[in-house]
């Protein structure tokens, strides 16, 4: 893809249509928010049915086979990151109760296959998911890959009631499922996932089958297995099925291929998907909502995620009813823990969220003796103050400090989008400083477009290029301003993947690299490279596929691809690109890392609310300043 460079004053055309779409397009293609999902009740019936009928024959026969791969799974692929989980547990106070709760709704389903699995592995909630996948597919265990598993399911579903209704174009009827493209199936699954979320938030049973029963769905001919709908209720399930299938036949080499796990990153959590099925039942809806939005990248960015988390927790605290024989401040932490662990299951915790939650816990622990209502008011106030002091006001101070560093005639380069950087650039423009901005962006998220849109709307002269053109545009740049996900104690900058390239190429040309970061994002962690800790995004985002929206307008396929077949529905398949069937290709793995690490020597200055500091001073701020702030 050749970098598109557009100059000053106008928004690139490919951006123009995404500009209008962020709200609209998301909801049309896939159901993204629990609310909207719930509104399509008829649809829900159809898909549930569809889904469950597909699985039934397989799961019935596969029950005995499935118990074995489960144990393989425990010690195998997943065990590599289990230790990390436990550290998370320690950090966020994740308690074993969570796994119990997680398991319970499914255990109650009363199916033999179910019982067997659930009974023997009640505690391994992680394993559970994949185990259920196996149940659904072990009938096709001898065949390999998700492709074949679906095709074996095809005949069964053919007997089911054909899907109908408004979703028809998006969601083909059951017989055609065999011929669905990967992406279409994925979309279907996404939809089901969202519907599950809706069911949960609507107080229906999490499993599709039970929900169907509740809704009096006519699916008499089949006894749908809830495990199947669970397994397919999130996009990763397919891969997991395939893995499990391979495992059950003992084909470990095949398994390696199918996990699509990249050796160097095997220790990281695989990409996560919104899956309320795994969530405990008694979560506060606000937290569930926030978690889903984060999982779908609808809430994205360290600040936004932190604010969303805190606001959800505030609502949870406000609505919290103290159980008998305890006090609010003593019990609230136990109450919040499953919420926190739920957020972790949605998407790995951001450093900002972790710090905010740690602060909240610190405040709770400090005020154990307060009467309930006082404590509630205090915690709500503390949350509000945290958002105000550490985020909102901090951003304002950073903006005012940053303005000192922007002069007339500057050409400022920035990468992707940071809310602080956007605020700073807009403030500089509002102040009347004459400067130009080069927005560098990259696949797969194209977050820079959002910034570009805001800047162009404000009338800031902008240029939009992709990361590949960085060497070319760096020549005219005289300042680089970047946002941060976190600043680590060794001064390293942990930020959106691609930041390191930008910082290094700026350093190469002795262009000052300015990082805007609030002090609450400082981390005590030390990291020397991007491998030890990172987040793996959904690899399917890398696939050039129009249908692969993932609820985010910016994840659309590259404009050049889209431009080639614009408006032509038939050529959509051509636009899908070579990666479409990547999961079937044995030797192809995709890696979508979300973050990277920029060593401290490539960062000139960090603008924080406590002033301009070199990034090596992070530990000093953590040591000297933060205890002061907490008082």
């Amino acid at each position, binding site marked *: 893809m050749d970098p598109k460079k557009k100059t000053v004053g106008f928004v690139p055309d490919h951006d123009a249509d995404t500009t209008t779409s962020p709200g609209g397009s998301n909801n049309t293609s896939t159901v993204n928010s629990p609310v909207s999902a719930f509104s399509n009740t008829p649809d829900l019936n159809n898909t549930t049915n569809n889904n469950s009928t597909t699985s039934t024959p397989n799961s019935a026969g596969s029950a005995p086979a499935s118990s074995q791969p489960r144990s393989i799974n425990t010690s195998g692929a997943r065990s590599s990151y289990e230790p990390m989980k436990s550290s998370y547990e320690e950090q966020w106070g994740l308690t074993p109760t969570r796994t119990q709760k997680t398991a319970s709704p499914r255990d109650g389903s009363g199916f033999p296959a179910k019982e067997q699995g659930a009974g023997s592995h009640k505690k391994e909630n992680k394993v559970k998911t994949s185990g259920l996948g196996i149940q659904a597919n072990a009938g096709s265990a001898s065949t390999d890959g998700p492709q074949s598993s679906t095709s074996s399911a095809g005949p069964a579903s053919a007997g089911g009631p054909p899907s109908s209704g408004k979703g028809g174009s998006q969601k083909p009827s059951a017989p055609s499922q065999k011929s669905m493209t990967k992406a279409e199936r994925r979309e279907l699954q996404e939809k089901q996932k969202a519907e599950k979320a809706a069911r949960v938030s609507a107080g229906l049973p999490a499993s599709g089958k039970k929900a169907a029963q509740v809704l009096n769905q006519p699916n008499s001919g089949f006894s749908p297995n809830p495990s199947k709908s669970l397994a397919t209720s999130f996009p990763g399930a397919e891969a997991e099925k395939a893995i499990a299938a391979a495992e059950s036949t003992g084909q470990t080499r095949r398994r390696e291929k199918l996990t699509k796990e990249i050796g160097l990153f095997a220790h990281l959590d695989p990409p996560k998907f919104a899956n309320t099925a795994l969530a405990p039942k008694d979560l506060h809806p606000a937290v569930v909502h926030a978690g889903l939005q984060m999982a779908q990248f609808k809430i994205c960015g360290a600040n936004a995620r932190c604010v969303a988390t805190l606001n959800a927790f505030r609502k949870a605290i406000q609505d919290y009813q103290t159980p008998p024989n305890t006090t609010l401040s003593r019990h609230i932490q136990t109450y919040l823990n499953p919420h926190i662990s739920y957020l972790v299951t949605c998407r790995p915790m951001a450093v900002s969220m972790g710090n905010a939650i740690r602060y909240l816990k610190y405040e709770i622990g400090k005020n154990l003796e307060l009467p309930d209502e006082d404590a509630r008011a205090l915690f709500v106030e503390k949350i509000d103050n945290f958002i105000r002091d550490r985020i909102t006001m901090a951003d304002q101070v950073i903006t005012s400090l940053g303005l000192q560093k922007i002069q007339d005639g500057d050409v400022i380069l920035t990468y992707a989008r940071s809310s602080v950087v956007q605020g700073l650039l807009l403030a500089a423009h509002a102040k009347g400083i004459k400067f130009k901005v080069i927005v560098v962006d990259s696949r797969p998220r194209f977050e820079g477009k959002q910034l570009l849109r805001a800047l162009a709307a404000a009338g800031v002269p902008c240029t939009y290029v992709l990361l590949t053109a960085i060497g070319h545009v760096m020549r005219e740049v005289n300042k680089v301003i970047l946002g941060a996900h976190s600043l680590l104690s060794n001064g390293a900058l942990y930020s959106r993947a691609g930041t390191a390239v930008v910082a290094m190429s700026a350093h190469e040309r002795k262009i*000052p690299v300015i990082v805007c970061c609030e002090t609450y994002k400082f981390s005590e962690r030390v990291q020397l490279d991007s491998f030890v800790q990172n987040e793996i995004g959904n690899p399917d985002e890398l696939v050039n596929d129009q249908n692969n929206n993932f609820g985010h307008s910016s994840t659309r396929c590259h404009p050049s691809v889209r431009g080639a077949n614009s408006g032509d529905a038939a050529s959509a398949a051509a636009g899908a690109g070579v990666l479409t069937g990547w999961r079937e290709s044995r030797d192809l793995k995709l890696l979508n890392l979300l973050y990277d690490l920029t060593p401290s020597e490539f960062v*000139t200055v960090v603008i924080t609310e406590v002033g*301009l*500091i*070199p990034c090596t001073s992070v530990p*000093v701020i953590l040591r000297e300043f933060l205890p002061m702030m907490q008082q």
Partner: protein
Amino acid sequence: MSKDFDVVANYKSLLLNSPELSMPVAAIQSLVELIKHSSATTMSEFMLSINVASQLLKSSVRNSISLSAGCDLFLRFVTRNSQDVAEFEAWKATLIVRGQSFVEKADACRYKIAELGVPFIKDGSTILIHAHSRVVSLLLQKAAENHKRFKVFVTESSQTHGGIRSAKVLRAAGIPTTIILDAAVGYVIDKVDMVLVGAEGVVENGGLINQIGSYQMAIVAKAANKPFYAVAESYKFVRLFPLNQYDLPTYNADTLSFQELNVDYDSKTDETGSVSSSAAPSSALSQTALHMKTSEDQASQGSNPLVDYTPPNYITLLFTDLGVLTPSGVSDELIKLYL
């Protein structure tokens, strides 16, 4: 208020009377004098008068970096102590006492630095220094007193000719000293074991603001893998974070601006073709510059920068009265001081 007391005149006379006094200390001393003369009766009036005075001081000199370091430090000192004011007059008195003790301590700073720095000077070494710095001279004198045998190259440092002053001081202390041209730094660097410079100010990232020429010296030293040490008293730590040379408070639009070629312009155009005045090619500029009148030479001198900024990655260590610090250590100290 300060109507009856001219803080700037006091500052200038202090510097004139005692050449050993450095600018920030003189600034603090004159601010202490101001407090003595202050007739302010309320806290806010008092703070205002100090703020006004420090602004006056800063604007009174062309290169205010080290001076503002002193002023800021004193202001910080005043504001930090203003929380626990019980009785205004008594507080004022303590401020005066503390200010004076600060000035005395500042004097001792240099001796402490000299003590810390002497071990770095090895017998038989050759040292390159830049222009004139009291604290560097003192350090070298102390080293000589400790019977270290070493030789010194000192850059002449045109404009101020501080190098000549340094050479005089060092020769008097029995140190073999050679004055070199500013342009000869690269020539001598291979013969040099270490580079020592003073500082006008030490900025927040551990970088250095010093007499022009320090930066190129640091670059040359780095290229030749020679240690580059800065010597600075802690009262020269200043809350600035320059991104590059052009981000200093001393930088303005006039700095190194290209001369208007209007003077001999008519006579030159036939040689250089059609030359637009400001966007002239450099060849035309230099040709014209040769024919410039003395008055314009003066003008171009005026637009030359007096100080430059040396980024921290060129600095090996800083010798300060707080100890021998790495550049990032400076920012730690500054954060502790100002937060």
